[in-house]
């Protein structure tokens, strides 16, 4: 793709009424939907009316007065952006009078604008410049001697973009983008008339303001007033490639705008069906890690983890890897090795890793990082609905009347979807938040939850069952839906169970700490408020009853008939960019791709036929079981692609002990991560910019990842796996990831219609995409559940065994922050550290005062599993008795604290509930200092000897 700007029709599409309007524009008859603006109508028929304040991702504003038109029979010159088309209307977009008016308007703009176009960073990419040309401005009669707004100091505080007020034309596009698209309301117009200027928060610097650096304002700016620093440094791009973000599970698509092989900027793609042209600070700006000096570009090996690394050729590293796995299997048995697939890598790469393990290692010892996040989603939704995935597309939220958010913090962890949700809330949808913390959604500009149920961590099941109690006992359930779509007998069993007095909101108040009246009101709203949709995250799954909570959610949705159409559903907000895909691709030890159990003879025969080997019919080991087997001496070799289990998995000491007990740990990654401290082979990985493939987001949307530059390490990740597989003797010959997808399609019933040519043509497909659903499936379970009848599951509340007490009186819960992603391996290597340089411990003022802790003090955080230190952040966002921290920084190692407790069905760790004590500290603990020293020792690399 060369460089062309995306077409901007000036105003958004009309809200569908089903009626069409016929009018005449410049002599041509046009028929378009009622509600369309004249500007958009003209643009759709090929006439670009001059404009500055209009953009089709913003509501029309009518401020710049450049888009005036003449309408026969109407007085004056209406703005085409704010004037809707009307039946029989005759519009003229270019007349002598209009030309004169537009030149006059443009002349005024230019009279207060620096004429430094040749040296301006936006030269050639400036709408003001374009429009001056479009209206034929040739002269500015006013001169430049009078008062102007030029020469004002720039605000360069933001690490990613500059604000130059001298080049601002006060069109308000940035303010409106912040309000309408992002929903943060950080920007405003300060002053009046000639003195009007853009201000962030209370005239603060951008960095210290409420701005969340989503980039919507920069994208909206028609001049160089708000412009990416990278464009200032590099120049404008000369080509663009559409690809998919490698951060969270929203799966935003971007135009990677390039100059040669240099990435100039990532601009959210307007046609992207997941993000609809919006972005967050991570996807938009935080991609500098791809060229960071810490990247390891050469393969390395070492016989022992106490030795320094030795750089070797790819041939030597691959041969060493294959020989070690074969040696270990010969010595300790077929089941003594396994691997972990990556939710950050592509579907194709993930598929290959699990294939290598099943076909090459001859066992099912494969697992993935979904083990520690959404494995309960897979279990819970498969059990109740028949499919291990969410039921809706993201657009569905715009049809919701009631939105229930439980255990999720979309504005931080899934910010682009969070903005969509806030847009719907501003339109009037009601919000219920169930969360121990006062997340931003509870109360932020123009958004306020109808009900916030601040439950005690670990009591999700009790609370959801109490809501079900209200639904059933007050007969708010949808009997017709249940009788038609679900197993009625199972419903009755479940209804009897939830109806018991012991499960009423009043009875469970001592457990949850939530007022019964609030529970009852929230349940009534959810059941009777119209289309009701549930969105949930890791605050649901990462508990000892994570799977039960998912099933309790599914029960509520089925009981109220909120499944099977737009605006409703059960929507897991998946964490990593391809965690849905990694699960789909057969990364779990008990399932092939498409969620078919390894004991399924038919499915196994299909793979055996394609791969030419006999496959194991027994489930393999999950990650924690692999670590146990390692400490027991029966598991000796692990291949890890793109996953840092030492930092991300619970009880760091358990992980370290397991890794240390193995004889060959292979890490394939961009950086020497924490896990690599225990590795014997390091295979340098490639970034999402350096390879082709697909990611599948939280709405089951499969989207292309496109290579925009050559891999710095020499190979895409799928090529590296193929090299290892062939060294194991598997004889693979994939020439391109499209061939891997063809194999996936041939072996996976829900993917049979997924091929690269279709993805390129459609932009994306949501699985199932097959003969039964050739165009994919935006909404699932429309005519019936995948499993047949929806299954109500009795979800008894079983309290976690992680108890508070005198030694550990507080409950720790963990989570993410907007500017960082997961273990921070990528975002810590970008300027995002400006917002979050370290993990902090959020603690309520009462708990802080009781311990003599002041803001910023170093505090020790101790649990039954371990101890670390970090600095305190005193806030009422957390309730008394609850503390919170993030896990983005390895120096903190929050998972030293978390325990071995996990979900009963899937072993997903109970990250969200750890009993702790907090006390003042002098600084980093002995353990932290020892670990830092160990990490330094482990990362030594022998200098390469000069050739003779």
């Amino acid at each position, binding site marked *: 793709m060369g460089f062309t700007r995306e077409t901007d029709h000036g105003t958004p599409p009309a809200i569908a009424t089903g009626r069409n309007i016929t009018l005449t524009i410049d002599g041509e008859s046009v028929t378009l939907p009622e509600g369309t603006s004249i500007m958009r109508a003209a643009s759709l028929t090929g006439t670009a009316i001059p404009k500055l304040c209009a953009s089709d991702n913003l509501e029309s504003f009518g401020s710049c007065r450049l888009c005036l038109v003449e309408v026969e029979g109407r007085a004056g010159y209406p703005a085409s952006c704010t004037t809707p088309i009307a039946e029989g209307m005759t519009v003229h977009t270019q007349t002598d009078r209009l030309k004169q008016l537009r030149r006059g308007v443009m002349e005024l703009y230019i009279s207060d604008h620096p004429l430094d176009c040749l040296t301006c960073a936006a030269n050639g990419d400036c709408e003001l410049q374009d429009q001056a040309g479009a209206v034929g401005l040739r002269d500015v009669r006013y001169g430049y001697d009078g008062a102007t707004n030029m020469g004002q100091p720039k605000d360069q505080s933001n690490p990613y973009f500059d604000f130059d007020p001298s080049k601002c034309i006060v069109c308000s596009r940035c303010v409106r983008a912040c309000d309408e698209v992002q929903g943060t309301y950080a920007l405003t117009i300060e002053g009046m008339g000639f003195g009007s200027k853009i201000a962030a928060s209370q005239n603060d610097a951008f960095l210290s303001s409420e701005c969340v650096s989503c980039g919507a304002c920069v994208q909206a700016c028609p001049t160089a007033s708000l412009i990416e620093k990278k464009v200032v440094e590099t120049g404008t791009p000369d080509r663009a490639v559409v690809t998919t973000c490698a951060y969270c599970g929203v799966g935003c698509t971007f135009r990677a705008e390039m100059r040669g092989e240099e990435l100039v900027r990532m601009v959210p793609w307007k046609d992207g069906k997941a993000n609809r042209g919006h972005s967050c600070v991570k996807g938009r700006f935080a991609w500098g890690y791809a060229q960071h000096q810490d990247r390891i570009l050469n393969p390395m090996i070492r016989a022992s983890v106490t030795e320094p690394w030795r750089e070797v050729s790819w041939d030597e590293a691959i041969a060493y890897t294959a020989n070690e796995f074969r040696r270990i299997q010969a010595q300790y048995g077929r*089941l003594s090795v396994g691997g972990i697939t990556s939710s950050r890598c592509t579907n194709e790469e993930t598929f290959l890793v699990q294939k290598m393990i099943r076909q090459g290692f001859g066992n*099912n*010892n494969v697992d993935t990082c979904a083990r520690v996040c959404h494995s309960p989603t897979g279990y819970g939704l498969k059990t109740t609905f028949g499919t291990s995935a969410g039921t809706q597309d993201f657009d569905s939220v715009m049809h919701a009347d009631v939105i229930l958010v439980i255990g999720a913090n979309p504005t931080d962890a899934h910010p682009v979807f969070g903005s969509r949700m806030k847009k719907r809330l501003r339109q009037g949808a009601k919000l219920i938040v169930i969360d121990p913390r006062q997340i931003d959604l509870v109360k932020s500009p123009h958004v306020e939850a109808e009900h916030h149920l601040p439950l005690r961590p670990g009591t999700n099941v009790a609370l959801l069952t109490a809501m079900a109690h209200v639904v059933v006992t007050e007969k708010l359930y949808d009997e017709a839906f249940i009788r038609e779509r679900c197993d009625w007998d199972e419903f009755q069993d479940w209804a009897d*169970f939830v109806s018991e007095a012991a499960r009423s909101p009043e009875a469970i108040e001592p457990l949850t700490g939530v007022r019964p009246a609030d529970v009852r009101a929230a349940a009534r709203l959810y059941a009777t408020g119209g289309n009701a949709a549930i969105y949930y995250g890791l605050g649901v799954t990462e508990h*000892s*009853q994570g799977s*039960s909570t998912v099933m309790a959610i599914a029960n509520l949705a089925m009981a109220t008939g909120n499944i099977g159409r737009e605006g409703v559903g059960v929507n897991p907000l998946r964490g990593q960019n391809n965690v849905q895909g990694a699960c789909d691709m057969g990364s779990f*030890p*008990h399932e092939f791709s498409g969620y078919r*159990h390894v*004991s399924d003879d038919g499915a196994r025969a299909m793979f055996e036929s394609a791969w030419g080997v006999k496959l194991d019919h*027994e*489930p*393999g*080991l*999950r990650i*924690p*079981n692999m670590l*146990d*087997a390692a*400490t*027991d001496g*029966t598991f000796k070799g692990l291949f890890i692609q793109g996953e840092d289990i030492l930092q991300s998995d619970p*009880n760091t*000491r*358990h992980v370290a*002990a397991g890794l240390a007990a193995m004889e060959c740990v292979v890490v394939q990654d961009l950086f020497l991560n924490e896990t690599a401290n225990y590795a014997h082979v390091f295979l340098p990985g490639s970034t999402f910019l350096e390879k082709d493939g697909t990611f599948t987001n939280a709405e089951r949307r499969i989207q292309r990842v496109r290579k925009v530059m050559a891999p710095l390490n020499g190979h895409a990740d799928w090529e590296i796996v193929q090299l290892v597989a062939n060294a194991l003797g598997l004889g693979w010959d994939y020439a391109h990831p499209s061939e891997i997808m063809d194999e996936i399609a041939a072996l996976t019933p829900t993917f049979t219609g997924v091929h690269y040519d279709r993805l390129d043509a459609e932009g994306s497909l949501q699985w199932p995409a097959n003969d039964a659903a050739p165009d994919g499936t935006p909404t699932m379970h429309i005519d019936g559940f995948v499993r047949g009848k929806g299954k109500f599951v*009795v979800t*008894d509340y*079983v309290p976690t*065994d992680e*108890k508070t007490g005198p030694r550990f009186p507080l409950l720790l819960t963990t989570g993410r922050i907007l500017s960082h992603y997961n273990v921070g391996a990528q975002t810590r290597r970008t300027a995002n550290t400006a917002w979050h340089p370290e993990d902090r411990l959020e603690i309520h003022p009462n708990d802080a005062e009781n311990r003599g802790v002041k803001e910023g003090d170093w505090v020790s955080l101790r649990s*039954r*599993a*371990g101890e670390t230190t970090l600095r305190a952040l005193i806030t009422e966002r957390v309730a008394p008795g609850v503390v919170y921290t993030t896990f983005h920084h390895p120096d903190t190692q929050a998972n030293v604290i978390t*325990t*071995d*407790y996990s979900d*009963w*069905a*899937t*072993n997903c760790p109970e990250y969200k509930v750890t009993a702790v004590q907090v006390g003042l500290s002098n600084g980093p603990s002995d353990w932290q200092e020892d670990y830092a020293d160990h990490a330094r020792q482990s990362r030594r690399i022998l200098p390469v000897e000069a050739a003779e």
Partner: protein
Amino acid sequence: MTIAHDEDGVMSTGDRLIYMANQIARNMASEGRERAEVMVADHIRSFWDPAMRARIGQLAAERPGALLPIAAAAIARIAQP
């Protein structure tokens, strides 16, 4: 019922397997004794690898009081041919 961590904060595999089996049993107990035994057995067959299943079988024999009745019965079912 809690997990016993040793001084390194890491519990033994045997303790973990017993804990896991009991945890599954407690979460399925509301289904009624007989049905829960079947469900626990099915769950362990579906998700535990053969070595883990064999080990829990040994542990059931070695430490008969460690397992809840539903878990013990489920493991006995698994051992049946």
